[in-house]
């Protein structure tokens, strides 16, 4: 058994009366991608800030690399890379200069930076843009530059706060490919997201978080098996009489707007019935994290 690289016990953080993080436990094995999945305001960023030593917890214990936080924040951050939720690249600098000055904050010598920066630009597919002003980059390029910047100190652990929010699908896939590459090299990844596809694709282990608490932990598959039936039939604009029939057929039903979600162990009979209804639009798919997420965190809209 390897020692966990991150260990949190009863970790809590309050802002006034609000429990942004309400006492959570988690451990991260080295070399895996660990995800925090949660809606807006769940406490994901607050948790990451505590991991960086930039937000003193007001309860519990937190250790990274065996060092307790926030006490050893400096030593922890020296071995950690961070991709923040909002871009904070230096707009007055070029792509290359952004990496160089960032290396300075880590106290890295020029000789090391001279070899590391070209490799990172290559990794981030930005070699051609090395001398472009940061402001002139697309959203996807900025995100990749931020990722390259987070790797300037060759970190053992990379923390990413919603790494692909706001990116178009192509840009998102490019970032995912890079993160998979990093994990293949043995770098531990800790990321937050509210994209199910991202969590499903990248994360070896996940916690689902809401209102500052962890609702469940496991591999994506475990979570799906534990919380939802294996098959889902989504029916658009379902007429009212259908609902009764589906219930009789042994489905668990969720209504979201005008759509019905039927969760079931075997959908064959249901599908046959639906085929006979002219004009009905439906989709049959295996259950996924999205269904777990909706089940655990509820369906009401968040606006925080």
């Amino acid at each position, binding site marked *: 058994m390897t020692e966990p690289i991150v260990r949190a016990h009863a970790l809590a953080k309050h802002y006034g009366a609000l429990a942004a993080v309400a006492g959570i436990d988690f451990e991260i094995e080295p070399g895996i991608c660990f995800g925090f999945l949660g809606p807006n305001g769940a406490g994901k960023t607050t948790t990451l800030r505590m991991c960086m030593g930039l937000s003193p917890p007001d309860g519990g214990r937190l250790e990274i690399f065996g060092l307790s936080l926030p006490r050893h924040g400096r030593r922890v951050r020296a071995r950690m890379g961070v991709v923040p939720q909002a871009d904070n690249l230096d707009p*007055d600098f070029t792509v290359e200069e952004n990496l160089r000055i960032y290396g*300075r904050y880590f*106290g890295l010598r020029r000789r090391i930076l001279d070899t590391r920066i070209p490799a990172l630009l290559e990794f981030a597919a930005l070699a051609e843009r090395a001398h472009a002003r940061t402001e002139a980059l697309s959203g996807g390029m900025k995100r990749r530059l931020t990722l390259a910047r987070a790797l300037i100190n060759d970190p053992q652990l990379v923390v990413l706060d919603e790494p692909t929010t706001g990116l178009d699908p192509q840009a998102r896939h490019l970032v995912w490919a890079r993160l998979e590459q990093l994990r293949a090299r043995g770098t531990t990844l800790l990321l937050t997201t509210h994209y199910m596809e991202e969590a499903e694709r990248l994360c070896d282990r996940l916690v689902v978080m809401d209102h500052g608490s962890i609702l469940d932990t496991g591999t994506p598959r475990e979570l799906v098996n534990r919380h939802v039936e294996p098959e889902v039939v989504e029916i658009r604009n379902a007429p009212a009489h259908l609902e009764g029939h589906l219930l009789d057929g042994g489905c668990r039903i969720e209504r979201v707007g005008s759509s019905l979600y039927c969760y079931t162990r075997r959908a064959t009979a249901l599908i046959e019935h639906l085929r006979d209804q002219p004009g009905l639009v439906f989709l049959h798919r295996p259950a996924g994290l999205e269904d777990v997420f909706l089940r655990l965190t509820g369906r009401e809209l968040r606006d925080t």
Partner: protein
Amino acid sequence: MNALRPPHPRAATLAVWWRNLKVWRRLLGPALAMNFGEPVLYLLGLGYGLGVFIQGMGGMPYLTFLASGIVASSAMTTASFEGMYSVFTRMVPQRTYEAILATPAEVDDIVAGEILWCATKSLVSAAAVLLVAVALGALEPRPGLLAVPAVVLLTGLAFAGPALVISALAPNYDFFNYYMVLVLTPLMILSGVFYPVETLPAAVRALVDFLPLVHAVDLARGLATDQPLDAPLRHVTVLGTYALVGAYLATVLFRRRLIR
């Protein structure tokens, strides 16, 4: 961790300073236009304009009196603007400090680096004033001029800390108007830049003596015109106190704002 502990800046301070230097070099043109343009306007406009009516002041030509005062006041203005507007820009809209804090650099390094940078900019702007003043014949190129940068650096440090304190408290840019109207402009008018403080009412004079600019003006004017300095130790002590107390308060307030 004790939030009131004394500042403990480390090597990353220089990285913060160096970052600012690199940005400044990139925008050198407009920066220097400001540094040189302002003293030219002041000295030509006020110095020659008023100088016609004023025989001399403090035992020297008015242009000389004015130039030696503006050296000190420009150090104040430059450090204060950098410590407010530029620091706030890096802290809030650009999130530069958030990026820096994700590295081993700490709040103490950011504050120390910014204070050093403010003082560095004071040095540049005061050097521009000295060059313009010498070129216009307002100051003679005497050896004493070479000691003026030391005064300017200390003046920059004395005003940088307080400006950062204001930034740490500021909810937005408009907040800086208070400091400008309530502190910087009165200091500029009352601290002997344009006329000798001896003409002020005794009560005002006593008050002004507790504030830093008058001490910077006395030191800069004495050195720039090769006159004997009165009470140099007191001047240095007042400026140094503002620098140290300002740096301490700025560090404590920035910790409070950035580490939540």
